């Protein structure tokens, strides 16, 4: 098993864990953490799969750097919104708004 494949397999595990967390956990902070786990998984897969020829391929590295910047910005926005929601309504979960209204 090459090191690249190990990275990819671990990445898939992290991605699935993160996706499950985002879908199943009710607490918003946990959802946001799960998103970061999911993102890390995708980055690992990107770096791992791109090391096929033994050499280092710079393009996925650049992609992962860009992706990290995006993930940090998104996390910051999500945390700010969560704080605002908590300050306004005291809730840390999304209310289950049914289909109407």
């Amino acid at each position, binding site marked *: 098993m090459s090191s690249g494949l190990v990275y*990819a397999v671990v990445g898939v595990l992290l*991605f699935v864990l*993160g*996706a499950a967390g*985002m*879908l199943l956990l009710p607490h*918003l902070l946990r*959802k*946001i953490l799960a*998103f970061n786990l*999911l*993102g890390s*998984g*995708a980055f690992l*897969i*990107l770096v791992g*799969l*791109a090391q*096929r020829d033994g050499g280092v*391929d710079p*393009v*996925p590295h650049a*992609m992962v750097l*860009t*992706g990290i910047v*995006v993930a940090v*910005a*998104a996390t910051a*926005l*999500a945390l700010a*919104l*969560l704080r*605002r*929601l908590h300050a*306004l*309504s005291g*809730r840390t979960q*999304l*209310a289950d*708004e049914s*289909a*109407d*209204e």
Partner: protein
Amino acid sequence: MNDPVYDVAPWLVLLPLAWAGLAFVWGPGRGARLALAGTALQLLLTLRLAAELLSLGGRRHAVGGWGAPLGIDLAVDGLSMTMLLLTQAVAFAVFIYARAYFTDRSADGDGHGARNHFWPLAGFLLAAMNALYLSADLFNLYVTLELLGLAAVGLVAAGGNAAQVSAALRYLLVSLLASGAYLLGVALIYGSYGTVALSALPLMSADAPLAVALAAALMGVALLLKTALFPFHFWLPPAHGGAPAPVSALLSALVVKATFYLFLRLGLGLFAPLGETIAWLPGLLGSAAIFWGSWQALRAQRLKMLVAYSTVAQLGYLFLIFPLLAPDGLALQAGVMQALSHGLAKAAMFMTAGVFLQVSGRDAVADLAGVAGRLPVTLFAFGLAGVTLMGLPPSGGFLAKWLLIDAALAQGRWGWAAVVIAGGLLTALYVFRVVRQAFASTEARPPLAPVPRTLEWTAFALAAASVLLGLRGMEVLHLLDVGAAS
């Protein structure tokens, strides 16, 4: 004039970024004129680009002269050009409306926070959308998707009340989950082919590695989630129905179209062979969206929720085209025409909802009683937009549905044509529900706040444009024949 500086494409991204940044530095609530001037310039540049495209064919631009794979390439073809035109045109009208909407101090209640942050966020939104339409590689598309999502979430949350923040958070989490899945798809594609440039990727063949099929599934689901196709529509009504009217207009008319464009582009290109085997799935989900969205629109208590559920239904039509895609191009034309006419009509409809909200301070459908005599222009605009959504001639919506039925009958597939017709009837029901209420006589005539005429007439102009589009539609669709630059 061959200097790259004179190339239009990068300016379509730089201009909105520039005026959005300036508006942000300028301070809360400022920058409306700047935004209007910038968007007018973008509209002119887009028209020039369309003329270039018609005479010279598809264009490419290597940003900074670097060129792919190291640099970023921008590319325009007929499909992206039509979407760019729609984006600038609707945004320009919405901005004229928004300037009057947000400076009016007298009424409403949902505009206070949004007034402060609308212009910078709208600029970033436009920059992200233009960049998305111009992008030529999968990873760049991921970045633009994220930028678009973040700007849109910001606009939903800008009003600042608990319901809006809650809707924005839900929207953000859905958007992030979808982007994560899309990114994993990009990773798998890069791992399989060693490139993400759309022009360099081979068409997915039958013996493609399993990773590519998995990537197709991940990216497909991600884009459907972001486009809010049934059953992934749950986040859309609170986000679109709860935001201030100009924001709802931008989101419903433009933002969901951007992800649809990407779904269409990948379905026609990279994943086309796969699409032929499972094309019935988006078609089926689209049909379900038409019925479910229309049913919810019929039941909605608030006007803006009604219009938001109407968006869920109308998005369904966009996905009906996938089972009908054929070399004759009829279904593709139908899809693009539906995207254009729905964009114009839905923006107009949310703008009229904003006018009703501003004059009465209330948003319930029941409160519209007697509004016909007092706001005839606005009600007429609502009716015209409804004509497009129902698909009555000569509107753009009629042309779209006609082409769709034509494509279905040409292939002898009556079922899809029946869905289109049934959907039109359901649309008529919820549009007439509003119009009937507006004509109802009422004893109580609560005082109506005065409303700036700009609000009424910009909504009217967009609604009229959506109807007139049907007369000139085939000429617009000629743009689609322009292929990509080699």
